[in-house]
């Protein structure tokens, strides 16, 4: 790969880290769709600031877009506060309206300048290396590299500086307010960061990728850990890995880099979703299966205990009996339950008959007394 490609990769990785860091808080605060809303809604802010400055590299664009983003959040909340619309409907109206305004402004008045609708959606990562940062007459690297590096640093330091406040406001807004932390200030501060990140990344990678990079890594990280600090690090790492993977995919297919990186995020999330140790789909299904078996084995122990020493013990302890109408297990399930209970040494087997071991008798007794206690507690509570 040439130097330019390395630069593109570096910009992509920095953008993904910057997005993932704020994304964690959006996901935890159940505001993930705000990344979609903000990244669409900042368009008219960018366009108007561009008309005013005639310079796509002006820092005013970032400020104007960030202000538009915060205003969007304010507008959605104000609409929801009138109680004429639910929050989701308010969001579904405000951001398409602002985005439409931006698109119309571009197509009507900015037709063939650098700003066009495709670059809005897709970004221009492939061209990023041509846009150089010149300091004191020296070429110090691509401008996007500095911009995304700066935003990643800004997000990391803002989160580090206000870590305790953000954590408390995210997990217990009521307590945060009663401690005088002003959740509203924290909320809008966070929205400001999201907007600045969105508009900076937007120029490099387009708005689709902004949404994918903010939500995907954070969502995946939330399946892997319960600790906020770990989640932030994981999200940044997963974001970087999927951005890099997507970049390689785009390079191999000679296709849209932003699209491929979004797909990279999707693949990364799918893997985590399937295989995460405790919260992944496979782990969840396995756990449910095991719980079902364990419950059935306890039931088997209780069944055997009920009939132990009675006249019908001989009949009731036959394996075939469990498959009959009395218990109603399928032969396959019965075999698995019996194996499970044998494995735990709750029961023993002689021929077609099962008998309880001491451990199995204890297990049945414990389960029954647990049931009894719960029943008594329910009675006590007047249920």
């Amino acid at each position, binding site marked *: 790969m040439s130097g330019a490609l390395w630069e593109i990769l570096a910009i992509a990785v920095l953008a993904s880290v910057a997005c993932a860091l704020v994304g964690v808080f959006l996901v935890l605060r*159940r505001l993930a769709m705000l990344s979609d809303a903000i990244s669409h809604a900042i368009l008219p802010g960018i366009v108007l600031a561009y008309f005013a400055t005639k310079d796509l590299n002006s820092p005013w664009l970032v400020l104007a877009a960030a202000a538009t983003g915060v205003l969007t959040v304010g507008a959605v909340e104000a609409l929801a506060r009138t109680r*004429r619309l639910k929050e989701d409907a308010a969001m579904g109206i405000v951001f398409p309206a602002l985005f439409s305004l931006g698109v119309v402004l571009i197509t009507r008045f900015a037709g063939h300048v650098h700003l066009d609708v495709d670059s809005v959606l897709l970004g221009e990562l492939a061209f990023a290396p041509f846009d150089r940062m010149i300091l004191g007459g020296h070429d110090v690297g691509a401008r996007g590299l500095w911009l995304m590096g700066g935003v990643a640093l800004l997000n990391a330091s803002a989160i580090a500086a206000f870590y305790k406040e953000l954590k408390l406001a995210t997990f217990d807004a009521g307590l945060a307010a009663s401690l005088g932390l002003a959740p509203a200030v924290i909320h809008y501060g966070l929205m400001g960061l999201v907007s600045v990140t969105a508009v900076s990344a937007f120029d490099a990678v387009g708005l689709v990728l902004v949404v994918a990079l903010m939500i995907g890594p954070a969502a995946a990280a939330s399946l892997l850990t319960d600790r906020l600090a770990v989640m932030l690090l994981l999200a940044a790492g997963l974001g970087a890995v999927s951005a890099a993977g997507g970049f390689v995919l785009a390079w191999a297919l000679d296709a849209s880099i932003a699209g491929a990186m979004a797909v990279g995020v999707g693949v990364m999330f799918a893997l985590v979703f399937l295989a995460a140790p405790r919260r992944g789909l496979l782990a969840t299904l396995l756990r449910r299966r095991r719980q079902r078996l364990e419950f059935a084995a306890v039931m088997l122990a209780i069944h055997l205990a009920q009939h132990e020493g009675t006249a019908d013990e001989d009949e009731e302890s036959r394996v075939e009996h469990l498959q009959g109408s009395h218990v109603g297990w399928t032969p396959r399930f019965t075999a698995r339950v019996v194996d499970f209970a044998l494995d735990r040494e709750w029961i023993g087997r002689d021929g077609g008959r099962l008998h309880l071991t001491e451990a199995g008798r204890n297990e049945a007794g414990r389960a029954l007394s647990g049931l009894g206690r719960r029943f008594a507690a329910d009675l006590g509570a007047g249920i």
Partner: protein
Amino acid sequence: MTLLAELVTDYTLRTVSLGSAALGAVAGMLGAFAVLRRQSLLGDAVSHAALPGIVLAFVVTGAKTPLALVVGAALAGWAAALLVMLVVRTTRIKIDTALGLVLSVFFGLGLLLLSVVQRHAGAAQAGLDSFLFGQAAALVGDDLRTMAVLGAVVVAGLLLLWKEFKLLSFDPGFAGALGLPVRGLDVALTTLLVVAIVIGLQTVGVVLMSAVIVAPAAAARQWTDRLGRLVLLAGAFGAASGLIGALVSSSVERLPTGPTIVLTLTLLTLASLLFAPRRGLLAARVRRLRQRRRVAVDSVLADLYRLASQHDDPTRAPHAPDVLRAMRDGAGTGRGLELLAERGLAAREADGRWSLTPAGVDAGRRLLDGDAEAGA
């Protein structure tokens, strides 16, 4: 008037207008349910997610057959909706995160495929990218027929399961208790929504179609509390906006259809929020002012009556406004007295003090008796 004449004679304009009105009507009607069930953002996810389906359908069939593209879009949108449900049901991930993730990843996949197709498929693919922001001008008779058939299917489905969908939207728990297949109805309604979205994609574009789902219903909601009227009104708003947006964008150069329709819808929604008769913000404001005035009048009347009734002849017991002001927190006393005078309940004496007229004494007594009754 020339526009109207052209509407009748011009084939393209007629096709475009009919198509846009039809898509607006169907999207509006289904959107009413989406908004009621707080699924506004599901529409956003489904419409973005349709893009890879459209491109893949083109790759598979090698042509831009309307029906094939629509089927591709519907399958992709449907898969997206199911994936969202799967992720939410099986993990701790919340609905907003699942929606955003599925939306952006599917859309990214669509852009990836589009960029590959544009590089390799030659001229046949031209116009696929108009699915991003919509191109009403490209509608032809074939598209219109596809839209009409699908729209009719959606509306028929809605009518057929009207009672069930109504129950599902307002009280799914009760629907389940009645033995209705809630999960199946949920999937059916979502499927109809997906089809309604897909109908509009060519005209409005995948990026903005969600607004055509949400906005007509949000606007219509301000005018009525009844589901039947809500659905009809949302359909009418959608049709009107589709028509206006398509006509404006067809007659003005370089004005994409999707954004124009969305901006029309936004104005309609804002107007409804402000000016609707009962729920409108303006009506609420007027109501509040009126109420405040009535409270001011009543409380001044009550105070004046309490003072006057201490005297032998309540109509000849003038009191200074400052006394009344001291009895309440002061605000609105002067205004309240003037309003009383206007109604002939109180009169200002030459020395600036106020006394009740006989009618005012009666009104005061009634007011306090009423309070006492209400208190008891």
